[in-house]
């Protein structure tokens, strides 16, 4: 028995680690917390059907789904374990919408009466109160706060340009788009530019208003050929390390290296280009 006890403990710990963070009883005293249902990448079709593709495009490991209830009040907690903090942020950035308020001081979070949504580490967490009662909304916030604390880990860090550089005004509107479906969801106006390119990373933000409205993007491809195609479609096939005009798409483009380009368009483009070396 003595031999098996540590082994058993290890197995339990392993199982707990692979299950990922969950809502537990002490998070919501007086509430009934269901056992989680887990769905792997392939099972995701069973859980969210056609919506699965977007998660799979970013890289998805599993989702846990729990129902918390107290009398007539109910919450749904879904925790998506993605392959990386970038992937979790990417989905969050698509689903964030026009977010009125952050939650719990987390950078990539949004609090609304109908949902709390945040990306922390490789996890995307959604807490949905099924009714509008204060009891339910309070419980949703408690569950979300407990998970935020429990998950910990490295959050997605945008490039220096968006963090504290010239593009920092666009930080809060930053989206990370990692494939065609992400593009169709969040930025269909770029569909033609990236058509047929299956693997790309696009960090995109639109910020400013009126005459200062500006679009900024960092485009990364897996091959030089793909970047050549994109620059050709922009009308900047010869773009190099200096900013040049994108004759077909408007704006300015700069090729940082074989597989990376920067793009600016709109009221602040000229000014920003001078500050983006």
């Amino acid at each position, binding site marked *: 028995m003595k031999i098996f006890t540590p082994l058993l403990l290890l197995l339990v710990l392993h199982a707990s680690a692979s299950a990922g963070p969950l809502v537990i009883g002490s998070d919501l005293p007086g509430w009934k917390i269901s056992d989680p249902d887990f769905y792997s990448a392939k099972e995701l079709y069973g859980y969210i059907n056609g919506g699965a593709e977007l998660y799979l495009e970013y890289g998805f490991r599993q989702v846990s789904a729990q129902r918390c209830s107290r009398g007539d009040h109910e919450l749904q907690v879904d925790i998506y374990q993605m392959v990386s903090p970038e992937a979790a942020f990417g989905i969050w950035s698509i*689903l964030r919408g026009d977010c009125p308020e952050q939650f719990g001081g987390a950078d990539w979070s949004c609090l609304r009466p109908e*949902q709390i949504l945040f990306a922390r580490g490789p996890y995307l967490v959604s807490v949905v109160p099924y009714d509008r009662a204060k009891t339910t909304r309070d419980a949703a916030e408690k569950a979300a706060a407990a998970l935020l604390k429990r998950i910990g880990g490295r959050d997605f860090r945008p490039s220096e340009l968006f963090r504290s550089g010239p593009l920092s005004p666009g930080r809060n509107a930053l989206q990370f788009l990692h494939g065609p479906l992400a593009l169709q969801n969040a930025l269909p106006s770029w569909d033609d530019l990236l058509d047929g390119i299956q693997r790309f990373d696009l960090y995109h933000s639109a910020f400013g208003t009126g005459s200062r409205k500006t679009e900024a993007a960092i485009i990364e491809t897996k091959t030089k050929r793909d970047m050549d195609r994109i620059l050709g479609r922009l009308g900047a096939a010869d773009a190099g390390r200096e900013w040049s005009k994108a004759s077909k798409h408007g704006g300015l483009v700069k090729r940082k290296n074989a597989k990376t380009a920067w793009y600016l368009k709109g009221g602040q483009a000229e000014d920003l280009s001078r500050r983006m070396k």
Partner: protein
Amino acid sequence: MASTPSPRRRFLKSAGLGTAAAMLLPHMRGTADDTKKPGTNIEDAFDIPRSEASMPGRYPGRVVDVFDPASVADGVPVAERCGIMLAEAMRSLTGSASVAEAWRQFVSPDDVVGLKVNPVGGALLSTSPVLVEAIITQLEDAGIPRANIMIWDRREFQLHEAGFTAERFPGITIRGTECKDSQGSFRDETGRLYSEDRIDRDWYYWADCEESYDEETLPYMVNDGKYSYFSSIVTKDVTKIINIPILKNAGSTVTLCLKNLAYGAITNTGRLHRPLWADTCAQVPCFAPLRDKVVLNIVDGMMGCYHGGPGANPQFIIPYHRLLVGSDPVAVDRIGLDIVEKKRVEMKMQEKPSPRATGFLDMAAGYQLGVADMESIQRTSIDLS
């Protein structure tokens, strides 16, 4: 019913169809990547001649859009208003003075009427039971016995989760192709999937792409390989289908009538999303069990979403306060797309409509399933404010 070719003939026929379809439909190729698309057996669908009952049905290109701001209160559809909206739409679509007569243009007491709902979004974003109750009431008033009405979709358990229960719909059959027993198991004591008995292997959508599913996933897909079999609900159990999707987006396009039918009626769909989404939406309804049985489409737009779909992301779920009704699924989808696109632009989800969003509709129009051109669609708007 289709003649059933021998398995060998089926194989030989299918193997050449990719090329045949590609040659038949060059005008539908939108992008350079389309040339790499897997072939399908769409030609099989054309072996069975069209009839008067075939899509787009009695009213090609005609869509009634009925709007009532009182149709939703506190995020919940209002039964009374819903019934009025539906009755107005049916009268307007058919020109009948009587609502019962309007329904009898599409169904008769001898029919077994299948109500194809969409329960995928759970309690948050599924076809509203309130609307289905209104449809059943009006069908009964038109002389259709309750015993001849079935609420159906792929997954029986999702129907229950979305509120389609025996308690709420007494006397109505509630059926899913994929089902569990009372213990929650998909399989009987021999390990056989219950859903095996609810598919019809004589009817299939073949596509030259496949996905292998693990033990946990297979019950949701029923089978793997290159064949997607039609549910026997559509091939055998019902004689008419009323299609009742919910108004929601899928990226910059929509998942309404065609998607609800295509992905709801066949097995093994996981393999189709990525390479053939538009094709599947346009091609599966070309097969006779859908093409010749779907008589009416009623989009539940009382609540719907404009982003985050087709899953249920509550921050994007809104009251649209409307129903869209028509016999032509392509025209209804086109109007639905117009509504969702406008909302997405208003909410700054996109700057303008995506030219790709209509791809599956153009394809479906090419197959004569309906009218996709906005200029050719007759949209009747009714405002019940």
